[in-house]
């Protein structure tokens, strides 16, 4: 039986062993500079929370359910400590940054716009070919430790990117989508959108109808469960779509081009439990870009690619199973709510179509193999990246295969990265008076 003295003895020793092993790891040592320090504090807070629980050992005469509950809490703590091993390579990555410096500066700018200023951005290469993010990875456990006090309130954000993409700047607007997850969490954006939907009687009626229709077919599933499943799916899809919209606010059309290159080779109109079909994402993204005035620019610099994306978006209404069709239909009909939430969050930090002039200047310089920092004042980093895409269409073709070829153009992307780096430094430079 778990919770016996021998079981508790094992668990306390094992938890202590895990904490000591992690604390002794050199990767968890003090960091120079600011990068990674909030993540390190967050990991140390996890150890503190687990140790706080370890000290609550019940007496040997405590009832069996109490001893078993304590044993389970130690096992959960050990799960978390083992999970914390994943943070060690992240901390190591802060000592040896691998990402293109220009891209890092631009991503930090996006983090400030979308999430806020009090963030610790840790960008980590990933051996898997995947972009991913996590933020406050252990907070649920730390926050749920009664009597334990946090040592940091600065949000750690870990961005994973494929190791092979460290210099593929044209794809890096995807980072803005990933930062969107931290933004949605920090600012309660999913709840904001959901509240708008809940206030619309047509949404409530559709939800009721969908629950009834599903219950008629899946008779073993109670309506509470069906409703909970739909609600969970709705929240996940809202979050993903918000991230797309936030990335559009931060990066303009560069996001939709990067997004298309990353996702379209993998799937087309297939829904996922957490992700809407790409057809739906494309439709909503194009609608958002049109509302923000980007459509003329897209049609001017990449008419062929824009037509291709329109074709994908045109398939957004294809057949889906009932639960996914409900989510799709509701989110398409409430597209403005998603857009409004992203526009309000990005505020003055949004990339305006006026940046297309600077993008054009950057593209012109790139066409002559000149680093596009700007002929007068330094160009804004996000406009340089947009200009990079503009030049990519010119040089490699206004077509999906042309976009793929552009991703392999190291020279172009090196120039873009270096120019963003230089323009960031130049903009921040304050000459002595």
């Amino acid at each position, binding site marked *: 039986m778990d919770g016996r003295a021998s079981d508790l003895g094992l668990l306390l020793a094992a938890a202590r062993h895990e904490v000591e092993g992690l604390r002794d790891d050199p990767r968890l040592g003090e960091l120079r500079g600011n990068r990674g320090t909030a993540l390190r504090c967050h990991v140390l807070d996890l150890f503190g929370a687990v140790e706080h629980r370890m000290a609550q050992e019940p007496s040997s005469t405590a009832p069996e*359910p109490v001893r078993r509950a304590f044993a389970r809490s130690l096992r959960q703590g050990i799960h978390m400590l083992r999970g914390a091993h994943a943070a060690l390579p992240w901390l190591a990555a802060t000592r040896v940054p691998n990402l293109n410096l220009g891209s890092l500066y631009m991503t930090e700018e996006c983090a400030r716009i979308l999430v806020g200023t009090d963030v610790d951005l840790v960008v980590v290469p990933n051996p898997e070919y995947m972009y991913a993010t*996590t933020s406050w990875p252990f*907070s649920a456990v730390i926050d749920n430790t009664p009597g334990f006090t946090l040592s940091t309130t600065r949000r750690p954000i870990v961005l994973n990117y494929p190791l092979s993409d460290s210099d593929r700047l044209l794809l890096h607007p995807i980072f803005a989508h990933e930062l969107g997850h931290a933004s949605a969490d920090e600012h309660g954006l999913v709840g904001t959108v959901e509240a708008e939907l809940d206030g619309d009687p047509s949404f409530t009626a559709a939800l009721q109808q969908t629950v009834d229709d599903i219950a008629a077919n899946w008779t073993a599933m109670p*309506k509470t469960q069906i409703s909970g499943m739909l*609600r969970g799916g709705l929240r996940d899809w809202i979050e993903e779509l918000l991230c797309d919209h936030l990335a559009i606010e931060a990066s303009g059309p560069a996001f939709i081009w990067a997004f298309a290159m*990353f996702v379209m080779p*993998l799937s087309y109109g297939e829904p996922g439990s957490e992700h809407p079909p790409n057809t739906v994402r494309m439709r909503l993204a194009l609608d958002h870009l049109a509302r923000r005035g980007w459509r003329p620019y897209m049609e001017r610099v990449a008419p062929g690619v824009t037509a291709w994306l329109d074709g994908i978006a045109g398939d957004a209404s294809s057949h889906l199973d009932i639960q996914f069709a409900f989510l799709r239909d509701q989110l398409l009909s409430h597209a403005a709510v998603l857009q409004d939430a992203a526009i309000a969050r990005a505020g003055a930090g949004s990339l305006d179509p006026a940046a297309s002039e600077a993008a054009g200047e950057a593209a012109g310089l790139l066409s002559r193999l000149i680093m596009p920092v700007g002929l007068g004042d330094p160009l804004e980093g996000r406009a340089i990246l947009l200009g990079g895409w503009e030049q990519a269409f010119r040089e490699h073709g206004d077509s999906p295969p042309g976009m793929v070829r552009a991703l392999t153009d190291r020279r172009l992307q090196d120039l873009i990265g270096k120019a963003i780096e230089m323009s960031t430094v130049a903009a921040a430079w304050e000459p002595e008076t």
Partner: protein
Amino acid sequence: MRDLQHLEELSSTAALGLWADDVVLAVDRATSSASLSDAQAGVLREASEMLEAALERTEHPLTTPKTARGLAATDTALTVVATLVQGQPEKSERELLTAMASVLREAADGALTMDDAERLSPVMDLFGMVGEHQLIASNSVLTSRKEARAWTGAPAISGSS
């Protein structure tokens, strides 16, 4: 894609289990001669509110808690209560939820009498079962870490390990 290592999922799964086990410990404290700390009283109050939210869901299926944690907690509680009711056919899920929410609130307010210990026994059972459920779920999260879903939502092919 969120959380390639599934750490946030593991953390929220474990947190719900830890909270359920904290309820068990606080219930035990409430029935002993020792005084209840503010934190433990808060845990009991939260547990009562969670059961009330679960009750609300049985009465109005479209009503769902606003937070992911609330949704997960009430989902699990409803599953466990359905199991408990199978062993007590004379009681309905709603009666059980109402009775447990009530005694938890009394415990949080320090209004229990010695006779109430028996009323708290099913509460300990319920939250103990939630704790067990969540420990199993934590194990599942860890084993699924190698089966990450792609950023696009298309299921990835699982490794053989």
